[in-house]
């Protein structure tokens, strides 16, 4: 398990590994938004939590098809499936590696990006907290989508179509938590909902991912 995690992290940081790709995309989205909606700081403050969450979600989506497709292409998945590692564990580790290389950098960089969008001062804490709680769900759900589409040629688009609806609850409550935090309103409800969704998918989806992966490996 640890071997798989360290290997995935190592691969992500080597040439062509795609580490930082999501972060760069996130940065581009955040930079482009003021150009499209205008530089008015009040408007930017209003939409900042939503835009930041949407940017993080799209950046996450960008790297999903790499989670399993590369391992499928070079035969690693077949060999891992016949190894002592349970597939449920493999998909969990894959999701964790994806979060560490995509979600975590975005959580850390979020305050800086918030600055670019003139996020109100009380919102920083809540933005980082909402991303830290919400992005693991994006990785786990994304791994499920990757398992569904593994082996399909040009499966990336289908993957996006499958996964986006599943991202909606996380997006709603994540952005709502960040927005309420920025506005100084009560945050308990969206916080609990967001955390509930994340823990729910972490607990359940690896089993579904492993099941569809077994079917797809046939």
């Amino acid at each position: 398990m640890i071997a798989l995690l360290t290997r995935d992290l190592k691969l992500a940081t080597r040439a062509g590994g795609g580490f930082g790709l999501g972060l760069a995309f996130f940065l581009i989205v955040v930079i482009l938004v003021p150009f499209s909606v205008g530089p008015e700081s009040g408007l930017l403050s209003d939409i900042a939590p939503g835009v930041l969450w949407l940017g993080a979600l799209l950046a996450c989506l960008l790297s999903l098809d790499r989670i399993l497709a590369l391992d499928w292409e070079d035969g690693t998945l077949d060999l891992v499936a016949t190894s002592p590692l349970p597939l449920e564990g493999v998909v969990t580790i894959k999701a964790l590696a994806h979060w560490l290389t995509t979600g975590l950098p975005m959580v850390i960089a979020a305050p800086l990006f918030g600055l670019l969008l003139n996020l109100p001062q009380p919102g920083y804490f809540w933005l980082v907290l909402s991303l830290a709680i919400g992005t693991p769900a994006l990785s786990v759900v994304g791994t499920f989508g990757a398992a569904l589409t593994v082996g399909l040629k040009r499966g990336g688009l289908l993957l996006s179509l499958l996964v986006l609806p599943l991202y909606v609850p996380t997006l709603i409550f994540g952005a709502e938590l960040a927005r309420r935090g920025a506005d100084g309103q009560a945050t308990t409800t969206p916080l609990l909902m967001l955390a509930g969704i994340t823990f729910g998918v972490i607990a359940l989806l690896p089993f579904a991912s492993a099941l569809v992966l077994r079917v797809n490996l046939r």
Partner: protein
Amino acid sequence: MTLTVFDLTVSRGGIAVLQGLSFELAPGRALILRGPNGIGKTTLLRTVAGLQPALSGTVTAPEESIAYAAHSDGLKAMLSVEENLHFWARVFGQPKIDIAVQAFELKDLLGRPAGTLSAGQKRRLGLARLLVTGRPIWILDEPTVSLDAQSVARFADAVRRHLAGGGSVLIATHIDLGLDGDVLDVGSFKASGTRSDPNGFDESFL
């Protein structure tokens, strides 16, 4: 550590390709599968390895005893030869890779990224993975593809050592490795080849 296959019917894409296969593979024995392209050797090996379900019949093997090697070696181009081998050794809980490195003469290649290896060198690395699994039953699908004569001999030596050490090998190959083993011509088990229910749901709707 005996692998027993009883009345096995294997299918590819919902169509039975081989049926009524029965054989036993005892420790120290090699079973060589022969047959023309497309007859279902790979399908049979994948089924025995547990990667796909059998249409009917049973495969009995002790748990965690099978090492499978097929056309793709599962190598990462950006990792060095040593890192690739170490990864598989750790996955299978084996501490050392020395024996594998020695058996396939990979010492000079250890520091090189696997992506820069030739096809034959990659194959050698892929086969070296078998030695770090520590598993007794090897299931090999055309292991000698793109190997030169010297490497084939080296591979045959490794298989012989494995057999001498109480392991067993189920191997599909077109060339003669000079192994002392039984030959099974799967051509005689060819299934009649009709789809059982063309309108039925299959597992892809699961």
